[in-house]
């Protein structure tokens, strides 16, 4: 497989206001993350709220300018481009958001909404050509043509998410960041949208960066999975490896905490103590050590690096290999 996108040492810090006469503090939302995205693959980011997964997705698309690091797409570092030079690349890098209610302008018809990006990039010379494009994309995502003259409020969440997908798809994207695209949907509708997203990827061979907090969804759609904790990757592995052989204590706890809809599923559950520390003032050394039951002195002083622990399997933990599940 070919590399589509390369992320190197990406960091994003936000200033947090300290108040009058107080120095502002730094919140490191994404802290020196590196990874590759292959063509046609789905890389999933999982983690709890506030771990920086959405910020990472947005930094890659330059919706939020990263503080430092590189995002290499087609041999070009997107972080060094200004808004104007970035624009041609935007066509190939699309995004789907969580809330389909907020991401569709209520005053535009579905035809206008789906056609808007084509307009903006002047990809259709005539209105007939635009119509043709819209009709084509609607057929692919399963939008009937009599939807086109209606407004977003006439549709349910699942239908709206289809419209959002159509709008991203009409640009022939090569990379789509999906930020919790099915979290707001009901179970029976969620499976329809997930199947659609999978089918589209097979047909058009683009890559997804799929941000989610739901590990069972990730297992269904993902090829590789990255687990994030407080702005860092703690584990990155193929789906099979991660689920069968989780190496990082956080991944293990996360996997054991998911409620499984199967009454015959038996397991030993590990409960994590406490809560996620504030990212403004993260623990020294390993960031997970305050909640980790294997933590030792070395975890306090040295920050663990991602290292190879199996085939295509990276984990950032000093105790890896020393702990038994």
């Amino acid at each position, binding site marked *: 497989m070919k590399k589509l996108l390369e992320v190197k040492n990406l960091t994003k810090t936000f200033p947090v206001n300290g108040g009058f006469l107080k120095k502002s503090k730094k919140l490191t939302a994404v802290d020196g993350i590196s990874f590759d995205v292959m063509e046609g693959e789905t890389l999933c980011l999982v983690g*709890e*709220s506030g771990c920086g997964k959405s910020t990472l997705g947005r930094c890659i698309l330059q919706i939020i300018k990263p503080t430092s690091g590189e995002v290499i797409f087609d041999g070009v570092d997107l972080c060094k481009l200004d808004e104007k030079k970035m624009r041609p690349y935007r066509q190939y890098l699309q995004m789907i958001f969580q809330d389909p209610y907020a991401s569709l302008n209520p005053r535009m018809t579905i035809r206008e909404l789906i056609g808007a990006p084509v307009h903006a990039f002047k990809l259709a010379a005539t209105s007939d050509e635009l119509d043709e494009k819209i009709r084509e994309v609607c057929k692919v995502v399963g939008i009937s043509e009599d939807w086109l003259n209606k407004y977003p409020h006439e549709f*349910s969440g*699942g*239908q709206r998410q289809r419209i959002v997908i159509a709008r991203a798809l009409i640009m022939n994207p090569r990379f789509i960041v999906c930020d919790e695209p099915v979290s707001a949907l*009901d*179970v*029976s*509708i*969620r*499976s*329809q949208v*997930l*199947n659609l997203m*999978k089918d589209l990827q097979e047909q058009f061979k683009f890559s997804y960066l799929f941000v989610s*907090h739901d*590990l*069972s*969804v990730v*297992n*269904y759609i993902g090829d590789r999975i990255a687990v994030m904790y407080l702005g860092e990757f703690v584990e990155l592995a193929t*789906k099979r490896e991660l*689920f069968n052989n989780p190496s990082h204590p956080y991944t293990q*706890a*996360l*996997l*054991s*905490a*998911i*409620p*499984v*809809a*199967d*009454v*015959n*599923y038996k397991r030993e*559950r590990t*409960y*994590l103590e406490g*809560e*996620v520390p504030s990212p403004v003032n993260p623990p020294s050394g390993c960031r997970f050590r305050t909640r980790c039951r294997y933590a030792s002195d070395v975890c306090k002083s040295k920050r663990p690096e991602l290292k190879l622990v199996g085939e295509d399997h990276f984990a950032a933990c000093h105790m890896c290999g020393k702990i038994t599940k």
Partner: protein
Amino acid sequence: MGERVLEVNNLTTVFHTKTGTFPAVSQMNFTLDAGETLAIVGESGCGKSVTSLSIMHLLPDRMGEITPESSIKFKGTEISKYSNKQMSNLRGNEISMVFQDSLTSLNPTMTVMAQMVEPFMVHQKISRKDAEKAAIEMLRKVGIPNPEARVKQYPHQFSGGMRQRVMIAMALSCNPSVLICDEPTTALDVTIQAQILKMIYDLKKELDTAVILITHDMGVVAETADRVLVMYGGQGVELADCHTLFTNPLHPYTQGLLASIPKIDDDTRLSTIEGMVPSLKDMPKGCHFCDRCQYCTDRCRKENPPMYRAGEREVRCFRYEEGN
């Protein structure tokens, strides 16, 4: 199982709107025994929350109304026609409720202590000093570290998981017979969710409280419930004990729902339920699920099936009519 604490019969709640009156919940029947957990599951808009609000008499005045033929019996006493004043004696005392969003459920302008002492002083009529002691004890029980100091803080100084713990502590402070939890962990992260669910389970065992757990997450149901009531379109469609429901679902909707959940150890293609939930205003005349059901017949379109008994379980589908 313990004594019967709650018995709901033929509960129908209608909403009056500009466009007319329509039932949000119709013909609900279920019972609840002391010490058991009944999970009510369903998708958004299926009437799970309206059911619990009807029991608590917390529906907005003039908009929502429980119809006269409904019956809600709490420990054998009919409470569906109780006045507001009579209900006040029950609410928070005998039946309490925990809501999804703990930030809006707590008063941001009052310290946690000021809110925690209320149920003690109102229902148990004890002095403020004793109530404060009891409140701290309650917070300790739900696992809040250093409760003496935390109790003087305001809700915004607590994290989401901690606030939900405070809510549960308040709800359990008068040792109620019934605890209704409306999506108690939906807004929380999975690791915190696991903590909270375990705590509810432990406290339920300790206090022998009956719990109604309202959720949309089948995973949570599988791990916590004794019995499950599946709702669709304002009606209960299947009622069974948890193990039977998951291993052998009878109603086509339950079957479809369980099949459309992604599995943690299996990534074969998901099956889906075609179409979408009809709006409560234009619910089909017959079976509410008929438009999406693969077994739909003419009869399903014309008549709404009653709950049929199949052994220990109940299912609302003509396919399980006596003799079939």
